[in-house]
């Protein structure tokens, strides 16, 4: 691991950001600050998971909330009806959401459907799931599922204090950041870059683009499902309108786009900046802030797409290049994480 390598540098920087967030959260006496940081970590985790398919793979997987919501319901149902430990449900949430991702990939990729159809389909699926759960009596319909926590029980991921959740949420985020780092360095990362930059050329070189895209979708879906499973345990209440909300969906994507969806650190930084802004606005203006926040983040989404198409991380990458260019020899510079 060398700091002159852009990928390694991003991993180290990501770890530092997460450690600082953990430090602030653990030392803060305010429950509210802990809540905001945990939510920010969850949004960042989904944004980072999305960047595997949406960034590296260049796929228009716009409806990432489907997988998050499915994961949330996996834990909600299994925990309240069968008393299965949320630690196990994190894994099951991953598997169920990944299976859904596999199904969507099979439905959409087999005809080589154009990206537009794919994008609309993924958004549509989230609303299908919302209406299915609104009509499913066993899962509480519109009332949703309440999770009651009475006493501390590590095995059942039940804590009276909010701080253990903060640490678990940040650990999840760290895990996902490490996974995206490993993917970017792996063969899959290079296959994804090839498919994103020129699908036909990649196919001509013997890369199975459907298989590559499917891998990316399954990974993004599964990891988002895992975060969703944790979210239901952390928030202790889920309903279909909330965990399949398109507003939340686009808010999560905005973090990734604003930060830079092609990098490891981008989604993390973007989300870390956004979530606290919403809460500060709410604190300053009360309930009326919601409409203003919509205006703010809609405008920000348009502006960041137009002015920063590669996100904030682009500037960090440029700085990184300049900073290490002085010390590294030319051929090493060429190797320094050159994934565009």
């Amino acid at each position: 691991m060398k700091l002159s390598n852009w990928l390694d540098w991003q991993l180290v920087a990501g770890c530092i950001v997460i450690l600082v967030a953990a430090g602030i959260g653990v030392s803060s006496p305010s429950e509210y600050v802990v809540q905001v940081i945990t939510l920010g970590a969850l949004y960042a985790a989904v944004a980072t998971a999305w960047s595997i398919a949406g960034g590296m793979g260049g796929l228009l997987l716009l409806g990432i909330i489907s997988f998050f919501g499915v994961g949330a319901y996996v834990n909600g149902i299994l925990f309240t009806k069968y008393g299965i430990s949320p630690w196990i449900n994190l894994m099951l949430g991953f598997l169920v959401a990944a299976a859904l991702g596999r199904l969507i990939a099979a439905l959409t990729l087999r005809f080589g459907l154009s990206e537009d159809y794919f994008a609309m389909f993924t958004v549509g699926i989230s609303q299908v799931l919302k209406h299915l759960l609104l009509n499913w009596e066993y899962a509480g319909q519109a009332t949703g599922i309440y999770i009651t926590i009475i006493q501390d029980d590590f095995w059942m991921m039940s804590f009276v204090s909010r701080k253990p959740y903060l640490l678990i949420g940040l650990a999840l985020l760290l895990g996902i950041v490490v996974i995206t780092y490993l993917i970017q360095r792996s063969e899959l990362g290079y296959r994804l870059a090839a498919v994103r930059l020129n699908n036909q050329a990649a196919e001509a070189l013997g890369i199975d683009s459907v298989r590559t895209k499917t891998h990316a979708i399954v990974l993004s879906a599964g990891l988002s499902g895992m975060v969703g499973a944790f979210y239901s345990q952390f928030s202790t209440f889920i309903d279909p309108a909330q965990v399949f909300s398109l507003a939340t969906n686009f808010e999560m994507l905005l973090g990734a786009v604003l930060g830079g969806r092609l990098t490891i650190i981008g989604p993390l930084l973007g989300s870390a900046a956004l979530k606290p802004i919403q809460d500060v606005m709410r604190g300053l203006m009360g309930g009326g802030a919601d409409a203003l926040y919509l205006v703010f983040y809609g405008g920000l989404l348009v502006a960041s797409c137009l002015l920063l198409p590669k996100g904030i991380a682009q500037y960090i990458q440029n700085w990184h290049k300049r900073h290490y260019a002085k010390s590294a020899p030319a051929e090493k510079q060429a190797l320094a994480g050159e994934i565009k």
Partner: protein
Amino acid sequence: MELDLIAQILLLGLLQGGVYALVACGLTLIYGVMKIVNFAHAEFLTLGMYLALVAFEQFGLNPYVVAPVIFGLVCVLGAAFQHITIRPALKHPQINQMLITIGISTLLVGLIQLVWGPNNQVVRLPWARNTLDIEMFGGEISLSYARLIAFGVAIAIAAVAWWALRHTRMGMGMRAASQNPFAAQLMGIDVSRINLVTFGVGAGLAALAGALISPAFFMNPTFGKEYFLLTAFVIVVLGTMGNFAGALIGGLVIGIAEAIGGLLLGPAMRPMVSLSVFVIVLLFLPRGIFKGRLT
């Protein structure tokens, strides 16, 4: 089940389908010419509803009288959005364009909520809620005037737009640009002006549909997104994206399909119908029921 009830439900579905068709026409036009999926489309419909409300409450004007003005206003607004936000992004990756329209959608929902508040409102036009009763199949079928007018005008406007696409200079320019923007440019067609007009007209058609249905539905800032956006997507996919006639027929088909679905599965499952159609179309007719664009 009695025959007259079934006829009533099918006719209501058809009337709703006419409005869907008008909304989907604008969406498919924008896609056909600019290859952009406009996620903000439903917000222009919501805006049209609120503008009709303002005209009615502030100036006492009937939504049907003021609809052409609303069409014009939203046309200009849509063209302005296109000019400022979408034109510079036409060369960017597709995901940026989609995210920009999602941003516009969010921005508009926020602005509508800031100006008119989050609560349900309706244009109180009492006569429009009266019904036309027809004796049929041994029973009585009641259709409200608001829905009848919305259907009639929607179909007429869509037909006019279809004619204009085939026979006016601007319409032929749009068809040329949708087939090959580069070749159209070489033939002396000002493609960036075509894009401007297309986006404006598309948004305007959605707003016009909004004004037409404003006496029949309660409006709130997310009304369009909740009831029309995904349905419009399904319709344009069903009728082949970019195919104008396909959107017209697809709208009527989906309207009736939803009515039948609501009848068989219960009203709670109604939204599932159009989304199931989406999945079925993707599985068996991935290119829609029509092929080609803007024919």
